């Protein structure tokens, strides 16, 4: 739903609409009728003349003279709820605008086409609409085109300098498309990130809640298949694309309430702890739903070149939940299991008017310079700049990271050369790091998370690394190589003694328990990944460790007080007034729990002693 409602006032009749026209305009309309009759010159006569030639069957005859696109414009408007013609929607649906007539290069000296007889300020008068409905067929709804298979390459069209002709010339280049199936990776990455957090190794900014460089590196190292783009391969700072998945995960888990910022780093919440052993698809669905509503981040912030978002421009930005709801709905309208070009999705969204505004005031957003580069200038805040880039970010960075959509992409350089006219973009290697997304496909996980399917069956069977747990307390991986996250998890509890073997030992396990890791989580992993029951020596060892780890409890800090002699210490420790607040420690010492200190001091005074501070 567009934010602004600047449509023209409804017109009840053709006569009323004609009344709003000037004599010159009416004269130009009058010449559109092919008749030998003399055209009147006075306004009232002109109106009557036009009305006479649109009466009865003459209207249908006029409609027949229209070309297909013009007839479509009539049909779309006649059957719209409010009788308005929507040029954007029409162009998106039919590929171009209908023929309205001609004008000079500045839009003046307009000579209307036949459509001018029916449209007044983008509206067909109500009486004409009723009459059109009698014979104009209802337009077909806009349809989304999808495909079963991906093309292998993408044609990049642009302009380049030809040194031979010494001219800037159009050229095209075919770039291979990288398809990535995200479903399995997302299931893995979720667990990996949760384990990273559980290990206390993920820090985020306490102000923005966003990951820093170290965190991006830590998360990136754990991702199954790595991030979508690998900046490590190039050393050109100018062409760095940046993290996508590694950036998204820390925010997703925070938005989903699986993790919260502790003293130094992210810590798992109780929900997060449960998520470690919960079915991944449920957690991913939950994360997507939570993300739709989160205010943790406005994805527009990820379009780095659009400035002003934290200054004046922030006030004009629309609520993110509304924008995401539209994208969510657009995805739900897509067929599952088919590849869809993102441009086709954008076309469809505009064609069915499933769209949103990013800002109420584009003048406060700018590129490079707030004055020259303002997006308020005409055409600078078009759908392709704001809405499209926002959609790309949500799709590529969040939906794909959560495994809802498989993606096919190319490098972002020159992938969307639609911003070249904007002031200040000359030095940009790309407008957004998401520009390279060209196709997507809703996979079974996406269908489940988007509510398009009631249950989930992975499209690729899970192949998990098989662990062999040996009676000598060794753990060996014998199947697929272990994922980095599982490796990190095992490292918490056991020593890695060779390429694929870990050894459980008492010191490491007790250290893990002390750090808050659960032995049962280890046992669950071992059982889940082993096709044999755990050897008795291992289960006994683990239960021994649990037992040892729970036999001592931290009851908090205490103050150690030295008494002059053993008799005094015994007296205070046994006096009914002080006894509840202290314990005898050795011969001459008393231990007073920190939280009982005040009560102890009070009681001590009653016994007849005091403890100088």
């Amino acid at each position, binding site marked *: 739903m567009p934010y602004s409602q600047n449509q023209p006032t409804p017109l009840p009749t053709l006569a009323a609409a004609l009344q709003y026209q000037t004599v010159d305009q009416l004269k130009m309309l009058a010449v559109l009728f092919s008749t030998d009759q003399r055209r009147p010159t006075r306004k009232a006569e002109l109106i009557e003349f036009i009305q006479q030639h649109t009466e009865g069957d003459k209207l249908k005859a006029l409609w027949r003279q229209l070309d297909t696109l013009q007839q479509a414009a009539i049909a779309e408007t006649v059957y719209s709820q409010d009788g308005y013609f929507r040029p954007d929607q029409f162009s998106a649906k039919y590929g171009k605008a209908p023929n309205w007539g001609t004008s000079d290069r500045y839009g003046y000296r307009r000579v209307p086409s036949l459509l001018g007889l029916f449209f007044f300020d983008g509206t067909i008068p109500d009486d004409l609409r009723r009459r059109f409905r009698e014979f104009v067929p209802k337009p077909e709804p806009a349809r989304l085109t999808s495909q079963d298979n991906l093309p292998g390459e993408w044609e990049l069209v642009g302009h380049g300098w030809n040194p031979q002709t010494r001219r800037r010339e159009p050229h095209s280049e075919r770039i291979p498309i990288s398809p990535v199936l995200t479903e399995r990776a997302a299931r893995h990455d979720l667990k990996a990130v949760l384990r990273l957090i559980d290990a206390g190794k993920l820090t985020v900014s306490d102000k923005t809640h966003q990951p820093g460089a170290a965190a991006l590196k830590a998360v990136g190292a754990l991702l199954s298949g790595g991030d979508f783009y690998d900046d490590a391969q190039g050393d050109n700072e100018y062409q760095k694309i940046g993290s996508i998945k590694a950036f998204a995960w820390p925010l997703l888990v925070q938005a989903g309430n699986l993790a919260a910022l502790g003293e130094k780093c992210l810590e798992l919440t109780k929900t997060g702890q449960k998520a470690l052993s919960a079915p991944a698809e449920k957690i991913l669905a939950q994360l997507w739903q939570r993300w739709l509503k989160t205010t943790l981040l406005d994805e527009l912030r990820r379009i780095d070149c659009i400035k002003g978002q934290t200054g004046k421009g922030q006030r004009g930005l629309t609520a993110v939940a509304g924008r995401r709801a539209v994208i969510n709905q657009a995805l739900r309208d897509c067929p599952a299991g088919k590849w869809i070009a993102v441009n086709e999705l954008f076309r469809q969204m505009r064609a069915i008017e499933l769209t949103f505004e990013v800002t109420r005031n584009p003048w406060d957003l700018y590129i490079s310079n707030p004055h020259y580069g303002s997006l308020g200038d005409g055409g600078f805040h078009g759908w392709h700049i704001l809405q499209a880039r926002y959609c790309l970010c949500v799709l590529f960075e969040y939906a794909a990271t959560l495994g809802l959509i498989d993606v096919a992409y190319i490098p972002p350089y020159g992938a969307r050369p639609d911003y070249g006219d904007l002031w200040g973009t000359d030095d940009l290697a790309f407008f957004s790091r998401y520009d390279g997304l060209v196709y997507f496909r809703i996979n079974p996980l996406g269908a489940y998370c988007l509510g398009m399917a009631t249950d989930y069956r992975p499209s690729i069977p899970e192949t998990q690394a098989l662990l062999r747990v*040996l009676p000598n307390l060794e753990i060996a991986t*014998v199947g697929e190589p272990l994922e980095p996250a599982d490796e990190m998890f095992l490292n918490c509890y056991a020593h890695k003694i060779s*390429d*694929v*073997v870990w050894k459980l030992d008492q010191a490491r396990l007790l250290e893990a328990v002390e750090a808050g890791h659960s032995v049962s989580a280890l046992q669950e992993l071992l059982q889940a990944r082993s096709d*044999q029951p755990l050897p*008795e020596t291992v289960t*006994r060892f683990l239960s*021994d460790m649990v*037992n040892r780890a729970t036999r001592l409890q931290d009851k908090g800090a205490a103050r150690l007080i030295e008494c002059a002699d053993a008799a005094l210490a015994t007296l205070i420790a046994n006096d009914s007034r002080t006894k509840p607040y202290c314990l005898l420690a050795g011969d001459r010492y008393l231990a007073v729990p920190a939280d009982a200190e005040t009560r102890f001091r009070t009681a001590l005074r009653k016994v007849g002693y005091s403890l100088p501070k």
Partner: protein
Amino acid sequence: MNDTYIPDNPLIVQSDHSLLLEVHSPRSEAVREAIAPFAELVKSPEHIHTYRITPLSIWNARAAGLNTTAMIAVLQQYAKYPVPEGVAQEIEALGRRYGLAVIERDDAGLVLRVADAPLAELLVRDRRVAPLLDGRLSELCFRIKLGVRGLLKQALVAIGYPADDLAGYAEGQELLLQLRTVTRSGEAFSVRPYQWEAAAAFYQDGAVQGGSGVIVLPCGAGKTIVGMAVMAQVQENTLILSTSRTSMEQWRRELLDKTDLAPEAIAEYSSQRKDTGPVTLATYQMLTYRPSREEDFVHFGLFHARSWGLIIYDEVHLLPAPVFRITAELQSRRRLGLTATLIREDGLEVDVFALIGPKRYDVPWRELEGQGFIAAADCTEVRIAQTPARDMEYALAPRQQQFRLAAENPRKVNVVEALLRQEAGHRILVIGEYLSQLQELADTTRFPLLTGKTPQMERERLYKSFREGTVPGLVLSRVGNFAVDLPDADVLIQVSGKYGSRQEEAQRLGRVLRPKRDGRRARFYTLVSLRTCEEDFARHRQLFLTEQGYSYRIEGEG
């Protein structure tokens, strides 16, 4: 060469040169046979066995005639994941070194031939090798000084160029010895196929390529029989060195029972008698005796007392360092090492390789167990809580005394009684560390007690009574750890041990691994006091047993 993941292959080659073999794989047996010649079995717990490729294992394989290309091909053929580049390179580099130096004999004595000039130059400049050489005969040939054949081999191994010793052996005095088909005690006797194979692999029909080396067989697999089979092939005077008098007695008993040697042909060189004969038995302890640290080993003369054609080193992994030194001088004698493991706690495996010889044969215990040549064993750890008073006593005791307090947990006596009831009708050994505890157990169980103080004659009498079935069980101190041949013992209860000694655990378990006539499984109980340091030591022992592939259960509280 495979460069991808092949799930059906059972071998994982790791960059630290260890090999993991999935034993449940249908191809595991083929892989085991293929890798055993050049990789040492380190541990064999259920599911996965670990082998290790070491310089010695490579040289052992090269000594057996295997080339490095074949070794690498085996790894690549059976590896589940790509073989780390470094492993193949290491095998290639190490394997290539074997045989670059060859010790041979010519008319004037021993010569060392090397494969190329750079190695020759390296050797003449090496401070360990150069003093042992007595001049250069040609660019690639050196005269070896007299009496340093062993030292030279040690030095060459130390610098990484193990010599192929083709200098042959001196002839010993003749010994006419035949193995019997019916023992003196009247039972049918035959050497098992693997024992013949081991003997043949050692002797190699008298060729210079054979005649020295080590046979690795698990406890209870009949290493003594292999020794006798080798003696029957060599037919020369033999010196047998073993770890204890009991072991000596066992050798004597076996030789008399299973060969046609007359009793007077077997001499004993011990503290009581210092006889030598065609077959002479002695202990390492006897040989390494000297009145003081400054004086010589007075009994080393035994090695030159006769013209020995064969020296047998029993339990070669326990061979003391002085015996290595004298062995270095005995390189012209055939030398047979017998052991259950090549791994030495002191790390002197290299000296075993250089001075006794390469591994000639081994066979894993599981294979023998499968063929019924050694008994299957079940290991059970029984955890026993102490009384609260004893718990407190343990808590307050100095750390050094805690282990003994835990080991002597009085409740263990009750558990032993319960186990004796449970195992009634079986032949039971109770082994422990502390005499007071053992005495109490002997009083309770009414089993005879054998300790280090028990006179040898009395020991032999009691062992004989046990073997004949007149006593159902024995209580043994540490003397029971080694070379007690009690074939019918099938239950062993270990009430206390020497901290976490794995060697002790293996030796004790070996007491009950002789195959039983009725095929029953051996049972090995270890009693451990709950929530004491004994648990930690028991875990070391537990690891060792599970790594040997025995099933291990834990019973009791906790």
